[in-house]
C-alpha cells in the first residue's frame, strides 16, 4: 500500500488533484440544491478536465511553446546544436542585424525543450465552450427564476408538483 502510494501519488500528483477537483464538481452538480451552485460545480468539473489535459503536455524542464532564440538561451543553444555546428556561430552574429530571417534555413529545435502545444490548443477550445455553456445555463436560470420566483431546486419541484402557484 505504501509503495503504491509512493509510486502513484508522487509521480501523478496533478492527476490525483484533477480527480479530486472533478469529483468535487460532480458532487456539487448532483447534490447541491441551488441552481447557481450547480453551475459553479459544473464549471469546476470542466476546469478539472482542462487541468488533466494541460498536465498531459507538461515536460520537466521545458519552456513555453513559443520560439524565441534571442531571449531564451536554452532554445538558442538547441537551435545551434541542431543546425550545422560550424555555421551556428556565424548565424548568431547575423541575427543581430537581420532580425527575423535568422530563423530561416535553420533546422528545427529539439522537441524536448518545449511544452507540448497540442493540449493547449485543445483546451483553448474547451475553455471557450465552457463559457458558452455557462452563459446559456445562466440565462435559463434567470428564466426559471422569473417563472418560479426561486432558484432552489426543492422549492421549484414542489411548485411543479403541487401546481399551486399561478403565473
Amino acid at each position: 500500500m505504501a509503495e503504491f502510494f509512493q509510486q502513484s501519488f508522487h509521480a501523478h500528483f496533478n492527476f490525483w488533484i484533477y480527480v479530486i477537483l472533478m469529483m468535487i464538481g460532480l458532487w456539487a452538480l448532483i447534490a447541491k440544491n441551488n441552481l447557481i451552485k450547480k453551475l459553479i460545480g459544473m464549471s469546476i468539473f470542466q476546469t478539472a478536465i482542462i487541468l488533466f489535459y494541460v498536465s498531459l503536455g507538461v515536460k520537466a524542464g521545458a519552456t513555453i511553446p513559443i520560439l524565441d532564440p534571442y531571449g531564451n538561451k536554452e532554445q538558442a543553444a538547441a537551435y545551434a546544436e541542431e543546425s550545422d555546428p560550424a555555421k551556428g556561430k556565424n548565424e548568431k552574429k547575423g541575427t543581430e542585424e537581420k532580425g527575423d530571417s535568422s530563423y530561416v534555413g535553420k533546422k528545427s529545435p529539439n522537441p524536448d525543450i518545449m511544452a507540448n502545444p497540442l493540449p493547449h490548443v485543445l483546451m483553448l477550445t474547451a475553455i471557450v465552450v465552457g463559457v458558452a455553456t455557462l452563459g446559456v445555463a445562466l440565462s435559463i436560470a434567470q428564466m426559471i427564476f422569473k417563472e418560479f420566483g426561486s432558484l432552489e431546486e426543492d422549492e421549484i419541484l414542489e411548485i411543479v408538483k403541487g401546481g399551486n402557484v399561478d403565473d
Partner: protein
Amino acid sequence: MIFAFDIVILVFLVIAAIIALSVKDLLSASMIFGIYGFLICLLWAEMGAVDVAFTEAAVGAGISAVLMIATVFNTKRKSSD
C-alpha cells in the same frame, strides 16, 4: 515547472473550490469562483501553458465571474446551501 509551486497552487485550488461551493451568499460564491479562476490561471502559467493561462484569466476569471454576478444580481443572493 517547479514542483513546490505546483503542489501549493493545487492545494489552494481544492480549498477555493470547496469554499466557493459551501458559501451561502451567492455573490461571495461567484467572487470566490473568480479567485478559483485566477488560481488555475496561475497554475497554467506555471505549467508552461501561457496561452491557456491568458484565456483563463480573461474568460474564466473575468467574464464567467461577471456573468455569474449579473445573474445573482437579477435573481436572489441567498442560497440554502
